[in-house]
Every structure is written in C-alpha cells, then in structure tokens.
C-alpha cells in the first residue's frame, strides 16, 4: 500500500447470485489525477462505481478513500467524506427547482462536515455559482422536466459538484450527446480537475476518454485487464481483442 493514493480499491469482488460481476479489482487513484475507465457493455463499470460509492455492497476486498476505510459506510456517509458521483441516467429531484436540487448536497453533505456551516445566504450564492458554472443560471427557478438532455447532464454534474467532493466519479455523463455537447462537458470536467478535484471518467466515447484521461483503466467481464498510459493501453492486444474480437 502506497498510502499516498486518494482512492485505493483492493481485491474488490462483487457477485449477483452466481454471476461474478467484479473479480479481484485493484485500482489506485492519486490525488488530482484524471482517470478514464472504459470497458464493453456489461463489463462491470457501473457496478464498480456503485461499490465505490456505497450504492451496492461488495463481498470481498476493500475500498479506502483518503486513508479511511469506506467498507460498510452508506452512500450518504461516503458523499460527506468527499466521494461524489453522477448517475448514468440523470436522476434529478423532479419536484424541486434546479436551485433547490443543488441545495440538497449543500445542506446535507457540505453542512454535515465538521466545522462547515453555510448560512442561508451562502447556500443561495453557492447554488447560483454552480448553476453559472454549468451555464444553467437563467433556469434556476425551472423544474428539471423543462430541461434538455444535455442540460439534465449538466445539472447532474452540478449536483455532484455541489457536495464539494475531492473525488468525482462521472458515470457516462456524455452518452447520447452531440459532438459539441461532449466538448462542453469535457471542458467542464477539465476545469473542475484544474480546481483540484480528482476525476474518474467512465465513458464509451473514445475521443472524449483519450482527450481527458491521464491514465486509462480497462474492465472486461468484471476483471481489470489494463491500466496505464492511454496511448499504450489502446494498443494493448488484450484491449483490442476485447473490443474488436480476435
């Protein structure tokens, strides 16, 4: 164990009945890193995210974050510790306005941390700032149902960011978006990373992954088959075989 890594996944395993979804996953992410996670459909990417974020309980191995053991902690406790995620399909709070959607992590994650008590005014300001950041400032009083697909993804990212995380796990936040829209989201993620947030990007759009990632991890059928420099990883014969067949 290096001890320096922000996120450390050791020997993680998860099965659904007889189906082995993840097996012996090892993953270390350094503070400030931009890591891409790819793999064919059904390879266990989202399951890994769910295990890291506490939505699912893994059976073997452990997840450490910033020197703390996360095993057994519920999802909201991990969010409070600084692990944020966006969902593959946006899951906004539909009966709350956009600004209120962002209030939730501020009230429940940021304000739950020791020593941090944002007042009502500071919360409103931070909501406006986050909406500004993703370009939704004009719609702060709108409901999520009024949003387009890309705006919905931006809201999803903004809500994840509202919890002021140290690690952001973006689960396919660009699927189904146009070329320009993908660039929009990428720029946003890179800006966040420059502000000091470690980002794990799970994505199918290779152009985006290659542009974004400093390191690339490949999952196939629940196992990690490659981990390293993106340019080397995509040339790795195992990876090519997994994607293109023999």
């Amino acid at each position, binding site marked *: 164990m290096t001890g320096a890594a922000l996120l450390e996944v050791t020997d993680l395993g998860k099965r659904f009945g007889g189906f082995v979804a993840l097996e012996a996953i090892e993953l270390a992410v350094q503070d400030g890193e931009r890591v891409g996670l790819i793999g064919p459909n059904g390879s266990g990417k989202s399951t890994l995210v769910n295990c890291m974020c506490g*939505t699912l309980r893994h059976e073997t191995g452990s997840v450490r974050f910033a020197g703390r053991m996360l095993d057994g902690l519920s999802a*909201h406790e991990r969010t*409070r510790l600084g692990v944020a995620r966006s969902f593959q399909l946006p899951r906004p*709070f539909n009966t*709350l306005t956009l600004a209120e959607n962002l209030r939730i992590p501020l*009230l*429940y994650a940021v304000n739950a941390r020791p020593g941090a008590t944002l007042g009502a005014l500071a919360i409103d300001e931070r909501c406006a700032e986050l909406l500004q950041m993703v370009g939704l400032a004009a719609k702060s009083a709108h409901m999520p149902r009024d949003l387009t697909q890309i705006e919905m993804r931006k809201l999803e990212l903004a*809500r994840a960011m509202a*919890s002021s995380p140290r690690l952001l796990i973006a689960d396919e936040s660009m699927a189904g978006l146009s070329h320009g829209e993908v660039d929009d989201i990428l720029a946003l993620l890179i800006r966040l990373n420059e502000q000091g947030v470690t980002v794990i990007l799970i994505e199918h759009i290779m152009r985006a992954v290659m542009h974004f990632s400093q390191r690339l991890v490949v999952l196939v059928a629940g196992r990690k088959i490659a981990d390293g420099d993106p340019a080397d990883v995509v040339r790795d014969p195992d990876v090519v075989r997994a994607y293109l067949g023999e």
Partner: protein
Amino acid sequence: MSGTKFVLALLIAAGVVFGAALLVGNSYVFFAGYVVLQYIALATAWNILGGYTGYVNFGTAAFFALGAYTTVVLHKLTTLPLPIMMPIGGIVSGIIGLGTGYLTLRLRGAFFSIATLALAVVVQTLITNWDFVGGSRGAYIVRPPTTPLLGIDYIQYLCLVMLALVVIVLATARAIERSRLGYGLATIRDDELAAEASGVPTLRLKLVATTMSGAFMGMAGAPLPYYVTYLDPTSGFNLAYAVNGVAMPLVGGTSSWFGPVIGAILLGTLQQVVTVTISSAVNLLIVGLVLVAFVIVAPNGILGLLRLQGRRS
C-alpha cells in the same frame, strides 16, 4: 410569513372558529366540528409521510386507534387530564410508527402500503383480544363531570383541545416544509438513490417521518374515547380513518400543508352533511366518488388546480 407569525395567525383563526361556533349556540356544531378538526389533524399527519416523503400509509386507522386505546388504558388506571393523555397516546403511536419504519424500510411504493395495511390488521387483532381495554365488547368511558375550563361543556372542551392539536400539527407541518428536513424528505419522495448520493441520510429521515406521522395520528385519536364514550375495535379501527386519511390530502393537494386542510374541511363537512341529510352509510361512497372525480379532473388536488389556474392567467 415567519414561523411565529404563522402560529399567531393560526391561533387567531382557531379563536375565530371557536368563537363563531359558540355564537351559533347549537352543540351539534361542536359535535360535527370536532370530527372535521380531527380529520384536519389526521390528514396533515398522513401528509408528512404520504405527501412530503412519498410513502403511502394505509394503516392510519391503526395509529389513530392506538392513540384512542392508550386513552382507554390511562382512563382506567389514572386520573390524568386529557391534554396529558394526548402526548402519551402520541408517544405510543410514534413508537409504533418508528417500528413500522424499521420493519418496512426496504419496502417501497405499493409494497410499503400493503405492509401498513397488514399492520392495521395485526394491531386490531391484538386489541380485539385484549380484555383489559374491553376486547371485542368495547369499553365504556364515563366523561368527567366537569371540564377544567369554566363555563364550557364537555363537547366544547373536546373541540377546543382538538383545535389546539390542529394548530400544533399545522405549525409543525409548515415548519417541516420550509426546513432542511423538508428538503430531505422531498428528495426521498423524488429519488432515494440520488438522495443518498447527495448526502441525505434517507433511512434516518424516513424513520423521522414515520415516527412524526404516527405520533400525530395517535394524538388525534387520543380524545376519541371521550367523544364517543363507547369505543370498540370496529369503530376505533374503522376503515373510514384510513380512507379519509389518504383521500383528504389527495383531494386537497399533497404538496403543501394547506392541501390536507382544504381536503379535510371539504370532505369532512360533506360527510357530516350527508350523515344528517341522507344516511351515515353513504359517507364512504361520497369519498370514493370525490376521489375518482379528482383523480380524473385534478390529479394534483385542489392546490394543483389553483396553481394551474394561476399559471394560465
């Protein structure tokens, strides 16, 4: 409006209602008024779990009757005044609410509702077989000869007590709506996974909601034995409480504290009028018809209808 101002406004409204009822000078007004007030408290209590948190409780009658039977027990064992018995009834129902929350925490949607229905049956069976509170024979409650307040008779006193409870319940419901807790409950209603990911401790908040909702239902039921003076399981666990508890918030609108109030006044009054003019058996039929009409015409209740009007104009 700030919280204090709101409570003040509620108190003034309550005073006006009570004063007006005194002016009418007919004690039937108090008999009918008590029932409507009881339903305002019950519907608002239901809405804390059903409307704010999105968990539909069909077991209203169980929490309500537990409050009533707590009073029966206290009446037999002690000489406590009613305003003390009510919080005790609330505590009993609140504990059952907490237990229900724990046992059903993995259940969502219709499955949660079915579990609450089952709870009602279980509690009713237990009470029916508990001889101390009268079992299936029922229990007779002799009202105290005097009321603690001079100059008003017992039914007026009951009405006043219920009015006080309504003020407390409404003030609490409105305070929840505008609080951190209210936001947390709303996220549970909208999406529990996303709520957890945003740092909301969904399990704890669900337990808070089931406990509070159950406690207020118990408090609403606590004066019942003194109102009816004869309580048996069939009347205490009457289906009407469960049906009205769901129907009134839905008819009024579940998004705000005001919805259950409108629904309870509308349906409660309608039922009272129907009881004296047509027959007491038509009661629930009316509720059913109104509910069907609202599902078709105004799925978001009267509040939803008003909001739609406001947006159009």
